Structures are given as structure tokens and as C-alpha cells.
């Protein structure tokens, strides 16, 4: 029975993995990826690693794959362009892959774990401990240094993303609450008394007070720009 379930999961996993790289529509690829994750989680369950199975579903299906789906839908990816080099590189890639595969076969053909392996102590699962607790023990107690070092790796990646892409444009319009509060009516509005039925056209059109260029966000308002008269505004 277990063997049957294994083969069902494994077959669907391999098929969906093939579909991930061969599907023409990237959205379909991501959906097949999700199917693949579910089947891999099934395999983990069969192996008795229930924590990893749940982790795979929660983290990969719940967060990563959905994020992929968003990215794929947002980005305008042209699959045909991405496949342009395929004809040229396929034989070479296949050759390298075949060599590595042959090496793997050779290596596994002689697979024999070192006979003296029991001579050294191993960190293992204590009797009666669930594998969630055992993993927690390993990661947060025994290998806490490495866990923190992995955190540093992620921090460096984050710094890198910011360093390489963040550009502070002087024209960016940010909210500056202090300045908003300090603003008075006189900074931004000029009230003019006009006779009844007359427009501001005779007075040189619609105008902002000269001090507005200082009050405005830097670069967002050019006091020397041509003033919009209400004539041009009407057209």
C-alpha cells in the first residue's frame, strides 16, 4: 500500500516538474510547481517527516509560489525570447547534464557508507521526541551559530538589494509632516480683490505667491515656468 502511494506521488511529482520547465505559459508553470510541492510534501509524509511536509506547504505553496505567481503575472515575460538560445545551448547543456548524471550513477553504483561510521557520535533524535522538537533542538540549540550566520547572509542580501537599486531622486515627492504643519495660508494662496465679472487675465493670469517655490518640495515647482492663464486653461 505504502509503495503504491509512493509511486503515485513520485510519478505526479516528476511529471509536474517536467511541465514546470516545458509549459509555454509561465502561469501554468507556477501552477505545476505548486502541484509538485504538494506531491513532494506527500513524499515527506510517507518518510515520516511530517514537520517538513507541513513546512513545504505553508512556506513554499503558501508564500513562495503565490509570490511567484504574482511576479509572473505582473512581469511581461516573453517566453519565445527567453527560448531563443535554446537551440544553440541545448546540446551542450545536455552533454554536461549527461556527464554529471553518469557520474552520479557511477557513484551510487558503489554506494557504501563508510564502514566505521558508528565509531563517531551523531546528534540524533531522542527516544519519544517528535521530529519537530528534534529539528528545533538542532537548529536553535546545537547549531545556533550557523543559524545566526544564515541570518547574516540574508541581511547582506537585503543590504545588497538596497545598495544596488535604491536611488534617491531629488524630485521625489515625500510627505514632510513638519513642513505641512508649518505651512500658512499666505505661503500658498494669494487673494486678490477683483471687480465683479472680471477675470484675473488682466493681472497676468493665475499666479502663485513668489514664496511658494520655497515652500514647495524641492524641484516640484518651478517659479520661472510659464504661468497658465485661464485662457489656455479653458482650451
Amino acid at each position, binding site marked *: 500500500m505504502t509503495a503504491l502511494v509512493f509511486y503515485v506521488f513520485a510519478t505526479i511529482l516528476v511529471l509536474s516538474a517536467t511541465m514546470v520547465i516545458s509549459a509555454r505559459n509561465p502561469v501554468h508553470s507556477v501552477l505545476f510547481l505548486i502541484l509538485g510541492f504538494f506531491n513532494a510534501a506527500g513524499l515527506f509524509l510517507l518518510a515520516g517527516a511530517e514537520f517538513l511536509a507541513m513546512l513545504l506547504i505553508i512556506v513554499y505553496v503558501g508564500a513562495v509560489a503565490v509570490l511567484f505567481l504574482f511576479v509572473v503575472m505582473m512581469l511581461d515575460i516573453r517566453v519565445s525570447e527567453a527560448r531563443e538560445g535554446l537551440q544553440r545551448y541545448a546540446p551542450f547543456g545536455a552533454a554536461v547534464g549527461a556527464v554529471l548524471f553518469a557520474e552520479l550513477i557511477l557513484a551510487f553504483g558503489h554506494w557504501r*557508507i563508510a564502514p566505521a561510521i558508528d565509531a563517531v557520535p551523531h546528534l540524533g533524535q531522542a527516544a519519544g521526541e517528535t521530529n519537530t522538537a528534534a529539528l528545533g533542538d538542532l537548529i536553535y540549540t546545537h547549531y545556533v551559530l550557523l543559524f545566526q550566520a544564515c541570518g547574516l*547572509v540574508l541581511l547582506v542580501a537585503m*543590504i545588497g538589494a538596497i*545598495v544596488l537599486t535604491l536611488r534617491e531622486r531629488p524630485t521625489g515627492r515625500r510627505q514632510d509632516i513638519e513642513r505641512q504643519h508649518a505651512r500658512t495660508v499666505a505661503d500658498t494662496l494669494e487673494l486678490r480683490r477683483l471687480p465683479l465679472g472680471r477675470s484675473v487675465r488682466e493681472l497676468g493670469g493665475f499666479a502663485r505667491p513668489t514664496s511658494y517655490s520655497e515652500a514647495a518640495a524641492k524641484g516640484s515647482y518651478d517659479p520661472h515656468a510659464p504661468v497658465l492663464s485661464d485662457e489656455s486653461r479653458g482650451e
Partner: protein
Amino acid sequence: MNWIIAFPELVLTLCGLVILTVGVVQKKSTNPFAACSMLTIAAFAITGFLVTVSPDGSGYEHVFVNDGFARFMKVLSLIGGALATIMTLSYRGTSGGGRFELPVLILFSTIGTMLMASSDNMMTLFVGLELSSLAIYILCAFDRDSVVSSESGLKYFILGSLASGLLLYGISLTYGYGGTMEYGAIRTVLIQSGGASLGLMLGIVFLIAGLAFKLSAVPFHMWTPDVYQGAPTPVTAYLAGAPKIATFALILRIMAGPFGALAPQWQLLIEMISVLSMVFGSLAAIPQTNIKRLMAYSSIGHMGYALMGLAAATPGGIRGTLVYLTTYLFMNVGVFAGIAAMRRKGHETTDIADLSGLGRTSPGLALMMAIFMFSMLGMPPTAGFFGKLMVFSAAYGAGLYGLLAIGAITSAIGAYYYLRIVKVMYFDASAPAFDTRSPSLAFLSVSMGIVTALFVLVLGPVTSAAQAAASALIG
């Protein structure tokens, strides 16, 4: 006990986080670059002191080890990091003005190199290597408005990821066949099992390939010239210093420790890498016209000489490699401080022809460059001579006469292109003078020049420290 062993790393990490925060919370009007660089140098100095007084021992379930060898390598990589940070003080990118992430990333990369030097488990090896490399990929692309810098970052990132993949493959094979990732345990298992299985040998080959990539040893060198040329000069100086030393720490530790019993099997492989690096490094450097590319090929060659000590697989050989790396660190920083000073009207010029007549326009800089070139080719009594002498004598002691002969021939070929720079500087018609050197670069090139020229004075202490480190590793 665990915390005390890794205390220097923890302190450096905390300093890094604090410096990062200082840089982020600064007002927009004041550029925190200079302040952050100074703080980083101070953090390196404090950590260096802590490393020298840190106790021996192994901690965190055999993930982390501190011994004489680790201390020696950590002090070297901290010196490399601090010197590169001093060099960044004068750094101006294409868009002008330094950014404070530069020293912070150098600091985090150095934490990675310290972890590598202290690794006692394949997991530490990989995490340390990735921490150090990831920061360097970013540093290479740091001058993001320059096409060559972005190219060098991308190239290094893609090829580096491939190398990490090879390394992981090697680690997984070693784990699969050896049954453990702890160095001590692998050693015990191998000795008691009486040799390694085929799969384990395959794992070792992949491990060496992955590490040789980081060392830029032939045949895994193809990224080196482009990355060296494109990266900002202080980054290149860092790249050629601390990370290489840490990678050497890894390769020496795993070859002498867990795989020490298999020396006859891997010795031939290391010998081949060493020979190829020396030959390729010296021949390919001859037609170069760009001094940063020239230094890239020169570093390939130097890695070959340093590997010679490992190929000997004796304590004397490891001592030779350590002394060689020490001398290389200093002369390398000196050369790059000279290259960073090659600026005309604020623009970096890196052609060898730009150096012509430097002996007349800027005699001080020319003298320092000449000292470094003589040291690179191994002329007595400069630092480079003692490094070469020690690895050559170790190879002689181990009976590797072929390797020794090839090393001597390639040194002679190397002398041609090093001396060509001296000839260009002193005998060619003068090119326009360079801009005035910034104080940090002047300090670096003069102090490194003094260290390189008078290395004989500190040879005794360095050799005995290297001897202690080597015996901690093998003894």
C-alpha cells in the same frame, strides 16, 4: 564556553550591526561614509585584539573550532579587511561620493572569512563562504553607474553560484559516503575504514574544484581578469586579500585534517592545479596592457606558488604557504593602493602606459611601486623572496622536483612583466602627472612599502607564528 570561543566573531557582528544603524539613521545632509569607515577600522582593530587573546577549543557541537591556525588566518583576514577599508576612504565612485554600505559590506564579508578560518564542519565551511562571497558580489557591482563594475558583479555572481553548486555537490557526496560532516569525525571514519570509497574521492574532487574557483586557480580562473578589472579598486584589493586567505584556510584545514590520511590521492590534484596556475598566470600576463588585469593574472600565478606548499603536504609546506600568504597580503594591498592613486583629473586610469615616466613625475609613488614589483617577482631581500623561498624549500624537502623546476621557470617569466612596469616607470617618456594622492593612499603605499622592503625584520616572529599555526593544524 561556546560563546567565549566565538567571542571575536560575535563582537564584530554586533559592531557591524551598530555601524549599519549609525549609517542609516544619519541625517541626509551629512554623509556618514567617513564616520562608518573609521568605525569599521576600529571594529577590525578591537576584533584583532580579541582574536589574539581568544582561547583554544571547539564549540557548538563541533561546528566551530578555535586554534592557533584559526587565529593566524583570522588576524590575516582582519588585517586585509582593515587595509581595504582604509583604501575605501579615498574612494569616489562614478556618481561621486562614497556610500557607507561599502565598509559595512567589507565588515560582513570579513565575518564570513573568520567563520571559514574556524570551520570544523562542512556546514560552517559553506555558510562562511557564502556570507563572504555574497558580500563581495555586491561590492564588485558597487559602482552601479559604471558598466564594467556591474558586469564584474554579475559575472562573479553567476560563476560564483556555479562554484557554490559544485562545492555543495562535493559536500553532499562526502556526507553521503562518509556519513558525517564534522572534520574530526570524517578523519576517524576514514582512518578506521582504511581508505576512502570512490564516491568520497569524487566528493573531494568537487570540494577542491569549488574552493579552487574561489582561489582563482587554473582551471577555475576564467572570472578573475574581468572581475578584477571591473570592480572598484579598493574592492579588488580586498578581493585579492582576505577572501583568498580564508579560502586557503579552508583548503588547508580540510586537506590536512579530515582528508589528511588520503594525502597521496589528492596531492597529485593539488600539484596539477599549482603547475597550471603558475604557468598560465605567468604566460597570460605578458600581453596585458591594463594593470588591474595584469594583477589578476599575477594573482593566479601567486595562488599557484602558495598551493605548492600544500602540495608538499608537510608541516613545513603549510608553514611556507602561510608565510607566502602573509607577504602576498601586504604587497598586494600596496600595489592596489598605487593603482588607486592613478587618477587624472578625478578619473581613474588603469593602463600600464599611464605609468610612464612616473619616476620623474611622482618619485615617491614610483619607488613604492618598484618595491612591490620586485617583491612580487621574489627579489631578495623583499618580502616576496622569503615567501617563495619557504614554499620552494618545502617542495624540495618533499621531493617535488618537477614542481620546483616549473616554479623557478615561471618566476623567471614573471620577472619579465614585473620588470616591464619598472622600466615603464623609470625609462619611458613622461606622461602627464597624476592627481595628488589622498592621505589614506599615501599612508597605505608607504607603510606597505616599508613592510615589504623590511620584511626581514619581522620574518622571525611571522615564521614562528606560522610554525605554531601549522603544527596546530597537523600536530
